């Protein structure tokens, strides 16, 4: 028995010792003034971020800024600092939802947030255009918006992408299609197969989709969510196909898992608009989504401006198996030119 325990404990200690002894700078910029001293995986969750931050505060007496991959984590970290009376730390988050990030910025709980657009309005517009026989761009990548306390009242500072100009141009050219007062009584049926409803950003997407569809009397919109279940989502798309919808919107839970039904839909002449997450193949009419790498870069640039004389940064990451977390990290690293010391 004791040998068994020893056999478990020794490799464990060896593993720990290899992890812990790295010193205090994980990443630094060219002149070594901006340093990332700690990176923790808080899995997108506010409560995880808070407990991680509590530990981090005990370990590091000097922290200048916390970069969190979403607003709830930034807020959780801010709460930990507030509880411990640690002031002078800046907090930067991502997502910029009206109900979360922007409110935290307005309250002064966090310093900046970057909008991760849902693409809802654009997706409805593209679906309507495609149904009406208009050639739509294959990929529309949306820009971001920076929200700070100073610019919040003015609606933030937009950093539009080329994709948005393309969409604006379509509005201009095809005003007869994207009209809220159609002259014919042709109705297009558009269905949305959402991967899940269970997070605030997805809830915001749902509400925006419904609101965007409501603008057009010629659109009959149907929203269905798959509760984070790929099989269910496939079923929803298949149902839309059987029910002869004109266009299907889908935000895939897993890339590749929906390629077969996507082919089926296109084969029947149904327009397929992919939102936010990649389908994994070319079998769609148009893709609309935000750009996490650009958001990471925007955050990195803003952080550089918040720390003109350099400083120490703690990064609270989302689930690093997900591409948004990887890209929000990579963009941040790229913008600040961070490297391992």
């Amino acid at each position, binding site marked *: 028995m004791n040998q068994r*325990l020893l056999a478990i404990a020794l490799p464990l200690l060896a593993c720990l010792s290899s992890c812990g002894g790295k010193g205090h700078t994980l990443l630094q910029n060219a002149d070594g003034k901006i340093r990332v001293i700690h990176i923790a995986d808080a899995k997108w969750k506010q409560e995880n971020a808070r407990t991680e931050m509590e*530990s981090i505060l005990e370990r590091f007496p000097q922290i200048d800024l916390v970069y969190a991959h979403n607003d709830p984590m930034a807020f959780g970290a801010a709460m930990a600092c507030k509880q411990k009376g640690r002031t002078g730390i800046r907090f930067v988050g991502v997502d910029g939802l009206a109900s979360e990030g922007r409110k935290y910025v307005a309250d002064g709980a966090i310093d900046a947030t970057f909008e991760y657009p849902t693409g809802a309005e654009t997706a409805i517009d593209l679906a309507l255009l495609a149904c009406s026989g208009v050639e739509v761009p294959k990929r529309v990548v949306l820009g971001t918006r920076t929200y700070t306390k100073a610019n919040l009242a003015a609606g933030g500072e937009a950093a539009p992408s080329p994709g948005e100009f393309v969409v604006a141009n379509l509005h201009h050219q095809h005003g007869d299609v994207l009209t809220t007062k159609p002259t014919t009584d042709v109705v297009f049926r558009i269905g949305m197969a959402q991967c899940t409803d269970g997070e605030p950003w997805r809830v915001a997407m749902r509400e925006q989709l419904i609101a965007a569809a409501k603008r057009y009397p010629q659109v009959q919109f149907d929203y269905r969510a798959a509760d984070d279940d790929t099989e269910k989502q496939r079923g929803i798309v298949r149902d839309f196909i059987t029910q002869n919808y004109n266009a299907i919107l889908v935000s895939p839970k897993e890339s590749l898992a929906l390629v077969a039904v996507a082919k089926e839909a296109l084969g029947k002449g149904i327009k397929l608009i992919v939102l936010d997450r990649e389908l994994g193949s070319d079998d769609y009419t148009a893709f609309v989504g935000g750009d996490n790498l650009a958001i990471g870069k925007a955050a990195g640039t803003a952080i550089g401006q918040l720390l003109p004389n350099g400083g120490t940064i703690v990064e609270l990451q989302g689930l*690093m198996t997900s591409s948004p977390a990887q890209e929000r990290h990579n963009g941040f690293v790229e913008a600040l030119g961070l490297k391992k010391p």
Partner: protein
Amino acid sequence: MKPRGASPTARALLALVGVLGLGAAWNGDGAFFRPELHLDLLGAQSVVGLCALGQCLVILSGGIDLSVGAVVALAGMTFAGLQLEANWPWPLAVLAALLVGSAVGTANGLLVARARVQPFLATLVLMVIARGLARWVPELAGRPASSKFLPAGSQGPAFWSWLDGHLVGVPTSGVVFAMLALVGSLLLHRTVFGRHLLAVGDSPEAARLSGIAVRKVTVLAYLASGALAALAGICQVARDVQGNPAAGEMLELNTIAAVVVGGTSLRGGRGGLLLAVIGVLVIGYLEKVLAINGVPSHWRLCVQGVIILAAVLLQERRP
């Protein structure tokens, strides 16, 4: 109780001392020796701890409760919604949340004791239903389903700040957890109900033959678990300053792990609430030690698995 080698308490304490030793050796530049770290830990573990107490009671009765995480969400949403949207005073909102949790617990208990559904399945059903209800609650307040309940500013009602604050330096929710653990432990080991619960878990047939109201005891165990999970949900709302329908995910598994690491047998009848507290602390301290040393999360998961295995091997040791 049959005679055995080292007592379960001694073994559980050994595991705790082991993890504390690991923390002392691996102290993250002295962070482990700061008292605040240990107080933070008590506060952070109060939610999982309160649920683990209920989970432990159910496991002692020979069952299992998979619904605790969903009850945390449902009771939390009830509490937050009543306070923020309906402007109920906090005592009534707390009472309503406790009633909701108790109702789910009672449903679990009746399914298990009356309808003879296996505990795993019965509580799985309630887990799914409670999670669904938690997502539906916002619609009652005229908000989109699945959305969170957030206060107007970044600060919640005064009661939330109090619950998330400190009582004589100790996190309030941690104090609630510690007191309930003590009271619960006394009830379990010093009252007839407690002895009956252990007897039912040990052998329902023998318990029935000796005249114990097996069904009643079983229903009460699940009811207590639901109520404790509801209390945990209230603490979670106060800690997060929001009602979140996604709160408490994976909590069912974490509480089972804590109960088992503490040394309560999954077969029922043997163990205690203070053991569950030790189990919660062992896992909590392990996470803390890994966190202050900046161990990447993939390694953390592996290390946690290994530690749970080690604790279980230690518990399973028979003289």
